[in-house]
């Protein structure tokens, strides 16, 4: 197991290095340089040049051969833009926003809690509704209920998330007035932050009123974000259940005279859960990219909204840092899913 873990971790390294290379390359291709962007188009050329030197933008992109040749010290080859970016990354220094000058690592720390709360709520919704729906569809295979559930699941992956979000705001906030349309808390409310997840934090502080307010803000973004994973969970649960229900041990359980309920819940569902758990973990990625759209519509102050604002403002260090963070999270979660899978199912060889 340890060897397997190490091998998987090592396998991650070249991919993550590739990701940094790609992001670095893409952000350096962008027309205009960060110094001009920071100082504005009409800044004096000598100021721009000084800032370029300060930021190290006058160095070569990958290998600083001129300097190494000049000084004769071969390690000076690494005095390039990419390697100083990488050494910053290793110290968790992602640079600063061009506009606010806030360190990017700090913004990520603040904003990730908001995204994490939203993602958890969306996943909880997807599992709470998707699992029973999938089981129902499988046990009533070929009936109207099955067809209806499968058609709804298909619709779930066919909606543009941002459109669904807008329609929800229109129905539940504008027309019915049941739920707040945006943000995480009503004006005048505040949370003593512990984890950064408002519902949890306010419960920890014993503020039920604040918790309810935060939960009301959370409902619509979570439902909108949860639709795609919901559809995936339904489809996966149904197909895994159908697979298991056809197995010999289920026939044995039935022939022993067990109630259908017991057969489904104990004998079938337990065994069907494995692929479902995997797919739940893997749809974390679709949640992270979906969060960008959902958070944009609901003004949810998470990573997605932050990256979106950075794109609109051409704040490249933020785009770079935010996207890199999401890619790393995605890789780590996928690794964890594989590990859990290997832990749950002893049949899997760690090779």
């Amino acid at each position, binding site marked *: 197991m340890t060897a397997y873990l190490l091998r998987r971790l090592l396998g991650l390294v070249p991919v993550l290095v590739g990701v940094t290379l790609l992001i670095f390359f893409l*952000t350096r291709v962008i027309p205009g340089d960060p110094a001009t962007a920071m100082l504005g188009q009409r800044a004096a050329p000598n100021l721009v040049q000084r800032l370029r030197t300060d930021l190290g933008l006058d160095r070569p992109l990958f290998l600083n051969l001129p300097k190494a040749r000049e000084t004769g010290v071969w390690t000076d080859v690494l005095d390039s833009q990419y390697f100083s970016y990488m050494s910053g990354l290793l110290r968790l220094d992602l640079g600063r926003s061009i506009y606010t000058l806030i360190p990017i690592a700090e913004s990520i720390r603040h904003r990730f809690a908001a995204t994490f709360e939203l993602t958890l709520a969306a996943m909880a919704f997807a599992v709470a509704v998707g699992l029973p729906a999938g089981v129902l569809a499988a046990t009533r295979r070929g009936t109207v209920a099955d067809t209806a559930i499968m058609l709804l699941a298909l619709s779930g*992956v066919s909606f543009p998330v941002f*459109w*669904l979000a807008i329609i929800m705001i229109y129905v539940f906030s504008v027309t019915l007035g049941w739920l707040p349309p945006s943000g995480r808390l009503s004006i005048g409310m505040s949370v003593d932050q512990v984890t950064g997840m408002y519902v949890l934090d306010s419960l920890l502080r014993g503020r039920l009123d604040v918790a309810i307010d935060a939960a009301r803000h959370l409902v619509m973004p979570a439902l909108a974000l949860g639709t795609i994973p919901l559809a995936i969970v339904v489809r996966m649960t149904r197909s895994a259940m159908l697979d298991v229900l056809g197995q010999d041990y289920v026939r044995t359980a039935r022939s022993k005279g067990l109630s259908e309920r017991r057969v489904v819940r104990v004998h079938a569902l337990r065994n069907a859960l494995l692929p479902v758990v995997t797919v739940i973990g893997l749809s974390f990625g679709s949640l992270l*990219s979906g969060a960008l759209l959902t958070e944009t519509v609901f003004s949810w102050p998470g990573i997605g909204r932050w990256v979106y604002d950075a794109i*609109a403002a051409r704040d490249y260090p933020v785009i770079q840092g935010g996207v890199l963070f999401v890619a790393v999270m*995605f890789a780590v979660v996928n690794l964890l899913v594989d590990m859990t899978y290997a832990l749950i199912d002893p049949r899997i060889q760690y090779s």
Partner: protein
Amino acid sequence: MSDVPAAVTVAPSVRGRSLAADAFRRFFKHPTGLVGLFIVGFFVVISLLAPVLKPYDAARDRDLRARLAPPSAERWFGADELGRDQFTRVWHGGRISLRVGLLAVAFAAVTGTVLGLASGYVGGWLDTFIVWLMDIVLAFPGVLLAIVIVATLGPNLTNALIAIAVTQVPLYTRIVRSVVLSVRETEFVQAAKALGSNSLGVVFKHVLPNSLSPLIVQLTLSIGTAILDVAALGFLGLGAQPPQPEWGLMIRDGFTQFLRAPWMSIFPGIAIFLSVVGFNLLGDAIRDVLDPRLRDA
């Protein structure tokens, strides 16, 4: 006894077309697949007919008297803040979404197939390199890489198309590579090689036909994804630019007005939903038909 000669005489003609004919026969018994085919056909036909039946020039379209007019018998889908008829725009938007969706997927499929063939067939360092590249692309969830690419290249429809195509290349590379790896060791390919067929001949005769059905299924399902991605980029302001009647961009415009004119966002959204459902139904049905083992997957 009399069965044997009959089987011998019938066998060649049945074998020659059994897979395709069988697939077609099964497809036409597939209710949801037919619904999908109908929806996709509908969108294709109206998109092709749009310039004939209702010529449209987005750059000149404005009618301030009809500003934010609600849906009516005259304007089925209402009008936007420039008084532009939303029905015409949604109709012509289909041309953009279908074209970009098809082109992006075609580009991804061709690039992915070539990379997959090279990777599986040449092997060695080239295989390692291509798999590494694909893993990098797959490290970005969903539309995220497309967003970064467009933010770099500059926001417009062509760059959105390129970006979406890039994110889809690994899907095809993986399919083709795995088919090459499994086919390469089979006896009929070994035999073909032993008989002196060159590599290219083996690829075209044996590898591509074996990759065909997973590729077709992936193609159909990817068009739906591509349409959703184009709309997402448009909605974020990173795809089509005003005044193009692109569905995602129309929803973006509608979002700023949705207290006064909800129809501006509702109808383009329904159009996206229907076209994507169409391609998904069609793709699921083709998968069922081409590979009955996967029917309940």
